[in-house]
């Protein structure tokens, strides 16, 4: 059974005075991937926690099909929605298998223990995320990225219809980021509805169907990635210049943050490039982009000992 998740004018506040977010509404069709972008401290994680009823909403409701999730039993909810937190803290050194096996808890009654069938499902989930070689290793001895994958495996062992991931790529290196993103894509293709938060607009281009940019406690924009992620939107959200360019080898758009250096008028080249360019090109043409500043505006910061 696949479900439609919808949020209806959600509002949350810690102290009843200042809203962390308000007026949040969206609907996700089964098998859609929704990526929430936004600056630090804007309430992305808080929103995710409200969506799975870890925090009490001030007003509004989260519905699965037509049922308010707060009316559902915890155990019932945990069979439909799984949550992958950003941080983790394991008090005792469970092996990876024991750890993932805990994801079967929604299907195991209070007085019983996991069966062989539960072990089978846990092992499948571990293989799915690709950490089967660590299956007997204590989870406190694996790396941060591997732990993240183990958390995803544990969520998969819950056999959820909807998966919430709180910044699933934040502690990972470049390779692991791509690995996790393609895993998320595979899960989406299998029909699991996914909501994830991210700090990387690029990741939204890689995997998302829908993107919401959250700013100041509201969705400033919401829609398909191609429409939402633009230079203007990113500049307004993160207060830096970002170019959104189509890159042919990647067959997708990428976001390139641009930083101006003091003393350089060229937005692309480095200062050293500029100095070297001075030796070779009397017109002070930038060697990278062909940018040619007007002569009188050039203010090159010269390192000691280099004569120009």
């Amino acid at each position: 059974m696949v479900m439609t998740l919808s949020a209806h004018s959600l509002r949350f506040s810690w102290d009843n005075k200042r809203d962390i977010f308000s007026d949040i509404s969206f609907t996700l069709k089964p098998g859609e991937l929704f990526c929430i972008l936004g600056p630090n401290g804007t309430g992305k994680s808080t929103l995710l926690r409200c969506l799975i009823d870890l925090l009490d909403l001030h007003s509004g409701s989260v519905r699965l099909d037509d049922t308010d999730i707060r009316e559902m039993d915890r155990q019932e909810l945990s069979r439909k929605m799984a949550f992958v937190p950003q941080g983790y803290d394991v008090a005792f050194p469970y092996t990876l298998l024991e750890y993932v096996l805990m994801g079967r808890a929604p299907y195991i009654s209070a007085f019983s223990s996991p069966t062989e069938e539960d072990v089978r499902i846990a092992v499948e989930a571990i293989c799915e995320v690709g950490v089967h070689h660590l299956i007997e290793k204590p989870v406190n001895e694996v790396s941060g990225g591997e732990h993240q994958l183990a958390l995803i495996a544990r969520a998969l062992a819950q056999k959820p219809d909807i998966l919430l991931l709180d910044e699933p790529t934040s502690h990972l290196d470049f390779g692991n980021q791509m690995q996790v993103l393609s895993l998320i894509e595979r899960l989406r293709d299998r029909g699991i509805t996914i909501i994830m938060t991210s700090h990387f607009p690029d990741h939204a281009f890689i995997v998302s169907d829908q993107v919401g940019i959250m700013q100041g406690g509201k969705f400033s924009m919401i829609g398909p990635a191609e429409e939402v992620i633009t230079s203007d939107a990113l500049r307004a959200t993160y207060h830096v210049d970002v170019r959104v360019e189509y890159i042919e080898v990647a067959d997708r758009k990428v976001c390139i943050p641009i930083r101006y250096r003091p003393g350089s008028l060229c937005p692309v080249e480095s200062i050293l490039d500029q100095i070297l360019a001075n030796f070779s090109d009397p017109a002070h043409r930038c060697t990278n982009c062909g940018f040619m500043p007007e002569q009188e505006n050039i203010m090159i910061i010269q390192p000691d000992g280099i004569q120009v």
Partner: protein
Amino acid sequence: MDNQNLSSNPIHPSEPDNLTNIKDLTKKLNINIPLSIALYILPVLIIFWSLFMGRFEVDPGNVLRILISSIFPIDHTWTSAEETIVMQVRLPRIIAAVMVGAALSMAGAAYQGLFKNPLVSPDILGVSSGAGFGAAVAILISSSSWMIQVSAFAGGIAAVLCTYLLSRLYKSGQILVLVLSGVIVSSFFGALLSITKYVADPYEKLPTIIFWLMGSLSSVRYTDLFAIAPAMFLGGTILLLIRWRINLLSLGSDEARTLGVDMKQITRIIILCATLLTAASVCISGIIGWVGLVVPHLGRMVTGPDYRRLLPMTIVMGASYLLIMDDLSRTLITTEIPLGILTALLGAPFFAYLLWRRKTGWS
């Protein structure tokens, strides 16, 4: 969703070959199997050894015959003194040591899971100081051992109840608040206990109170055992039944909730069971520290942290540990050494040695 074929994933096509046999894998979860079996047999051997060990020597053959004679009538080849020693003095004391050791260890293990902290002992919520105060008041106003036990039991339960209600005042219901409330209630009852000691008659009552607080099993009789057995049985059985769920608590409250755990309910159940076990122990043995803290760690070294195997292991290890300590306390020197002193005096260096020698099962 349940019939999705996860293993058809093209990225990792070959790896499940060595994992296909789930039975093997389930077995692999049981590390140290020979050691575990040995540890399960250990209490039986120690119980038998304890029966003929002591100041008054009883022939091992006679011990066996005395035990059998209580079930089948056989010819008396032993003296009645021997029978009294074995059946009326040593046996109830041995059973008490086994019960108290197992109960304290189980309660400690359960609390370590609940508070996701390996440094927690069964008296974290104030049960020992409450029981100590209860016992001291009873000693002050009467000297019947029955009164002392009832009062200690009631004091222990009352202290934990105070802790629980105090923690409820703070709305968020965090586990940390529970620990803090335990500290508050413990020191309050500790102060009450000090007052009781201060006003006690220093020649008659005060030594009794102090000796009780040091812990001892020397005066345990069968009736005491029957009195505490139901509480211990109830608490122990429930904890054993929910033991796999205790694992989920050590993930922390948020993660446990997303896995479908009703935190309030399970917290209440664990506190109730652990309090029953601890209060029942304390009221016949006095305050015996250290067992509930250390034995779960010894267990984790053998079985790993999974409560499915850890909790049964703490029962047998706790029973053996306290029984050995009690045997030492009555045989080491001519007078008896209070058990609470011995568990710490011998237990601490032993634990330090283990810490130094091998992995403790936590980091």
